[in-house]
């Protein structure tokens, strides 16, 4: 019987007992690499290749078209309203859930997770049923001249539903890990509740908070299904960038939807870049512990 590797002192053939033979390792890397190439790299490169297939000038013409500019503005507006509100919710929910113990916490957490499993389309439909002409609030909204459905406010509402868990979900585990000792110390030393939160709790979760915010923002700017139902889909009026991609698909120029798509892909790449930077940053701070 062969002696097991671990007991033979110097490593045999340069590998330890907990490593695969090199050929197995490289075969596994090749299969994983191929899978990633087909499902991650090819779609990414394809967006930009198709966008520039009509030349950079054509790409620029699509991006500076008045419908595109209006879609960019609406996308930014939707994100500018929904993201800060979701951050406020995320911080409040994380504070209550991570720092206190109360009955019904598990139920609350389940409801926070709900948007991860509810179809955005169903979310959009619910908002229409709530605020539409025949909906619960519809008659009241109509009487007060408030246009929610098939207009920007409805799109904001639907986006908020889809993206509200991101900040909360990012903060809760971090805050739970940190416990309450630091805050209790600060309070004992005479800090006010607000000071404690601002100078003790918030700085220790800042990277997680940033990460939650950029993730929330990426989803808010890229949401399609929920927003689709609440938009009147009038180009130049209630189109966000993802909706414009669909509109342009029906246009004569095959490169046009890809030009807008490339802009959104760029947003995704920037999001990934910031995320990688944040991970690197937070790891550097945790290292001495």
């Amino acid at each position: 019987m062969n002696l097991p590797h671990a007991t033979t002192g110097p490593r045999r053939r340069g590998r330890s007992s907990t490593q695969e033979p090199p050929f197995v390792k490289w075969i596994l890397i090749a299969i994983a690499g191929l899978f990633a190439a087909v499902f991650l790299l090819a779609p990414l490169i394809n967006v930009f290749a198709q966008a520039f297939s009509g030349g950079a000038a054509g790409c620029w013409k699509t991006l500076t078209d008045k419908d595109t500019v209006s879609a960019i503005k609406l996308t930014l507006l939707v994100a500018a309203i929904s993201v800060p509100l979701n951050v406020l919710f995320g911080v409040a929910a994380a504070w209550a859930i991570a720092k206190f113990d109360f009955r019904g916490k598990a139920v609350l957490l389940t409801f926070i997770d709900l948007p991860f499993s509810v179809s955005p389309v169903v979310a959009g439909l619910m908002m229409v049923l709530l605020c539409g002409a025949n909906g619960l609030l519809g008659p009241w909204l109509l009487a007060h001249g408030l246009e929610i459905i098939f207009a920007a406010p409805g799109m904001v509402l639907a986006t908020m539903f889809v993206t509200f868990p991101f900040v909360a979900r990012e903060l809760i585990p971090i805050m739970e890990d940190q416990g309450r000792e630091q805050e209790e110390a600060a309070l004992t030393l005479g800090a006010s509740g607000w000071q404690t939160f601002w100078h003790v709790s918030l700085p220790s979760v800042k990277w997680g908070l940033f990460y939650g915010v950029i993730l929330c923002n990426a989803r808010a700017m890229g949401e399609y299904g929920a927003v689709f139902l609440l938009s009147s889909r009038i180009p130049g009026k209630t189109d966000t960038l993802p909706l414009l991609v669909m509109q342009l698909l029906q246009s004569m120029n095959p490169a046009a939807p890809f030009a807008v798509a490339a802009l959104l892909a760029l947003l995704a790449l920037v999001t990934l870049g910031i995320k990688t930077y944040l991970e690197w940053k937070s790891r550097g701070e945790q290292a001495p512990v």
Partner: protein
Amino acid sequence: MRREQPISTKSNPLPGFGITLGFTVLYLSVLVLIPIAVLSLKALSLSWPDLWHLATNARALAAYRLSLGASFLAALLNAAFGSLLAWVLVRYRFPGRRLLDGLVDFPFALPTAVAGLTLANLFSGNGWLGRVLVTMGIQGAYSRLGVVLALTFVGLPFSVRTLQPLLENLDKAVEEAAAILGAGRLRTFWSVIAPALLPAVLTGFGLAFARGLGEYGSVVFISGNLSNTEIAPSLVVAHFENGDYAGAIGVALVLMVFSFVLLFTLNWLQGWSSKFQRP
């Protein structure tokens, strides 16, 4: 790790519990509870036979079948290749590893409409990859396969990112012990490593499955709006577009039930897998 000490409200000197919990509950009520209640009320205002017919007619059943089937296949693909990807990223060092690691989150950050657009183009008859499939007699985009491909893309980060931290924290001493006791590498993998990873793989599978079931944005671009590629969310939209709100509500209600069942299953799974993560 969560602190083991009990946290009780009575001896807790931290301020702001009432206002933060109040705001949280208010926010959830406006965005989640009231809309769900309205959907349920609207559904209940229909007669039972009507609702039953709306939710379970042949077209709806075909849509559920495709939604469930395609999400299942996509989650299965991700459980296999996503787990392999996680393993390769954690265990091996090779050129391009960090780039690959960063790319895993790409489907998470990319708007689904863009994903659908580029995948449809990529796997269409004259796309880079579709061209290869055509020579094998397979139609990539605008088919049921296209739906599976889109859902695989969308669910990919879930399986990788669920498994990765577990793999990083896996105690190598156990593997060494297995090796010392004479187990080969393959035997060690199947009897020592795989059982420890199973709960996380299942959780990743469940998350990818749940994501696939609700997905609309990417699928609508690659399914080509054919009658045999209609998933349940597309059917909701189709009814909605025709002004058939009752039809949309019937299908949406079934999707909502799916979501709740999945959510509770996932919560249970995560509780189960966290038992394996104790050091």
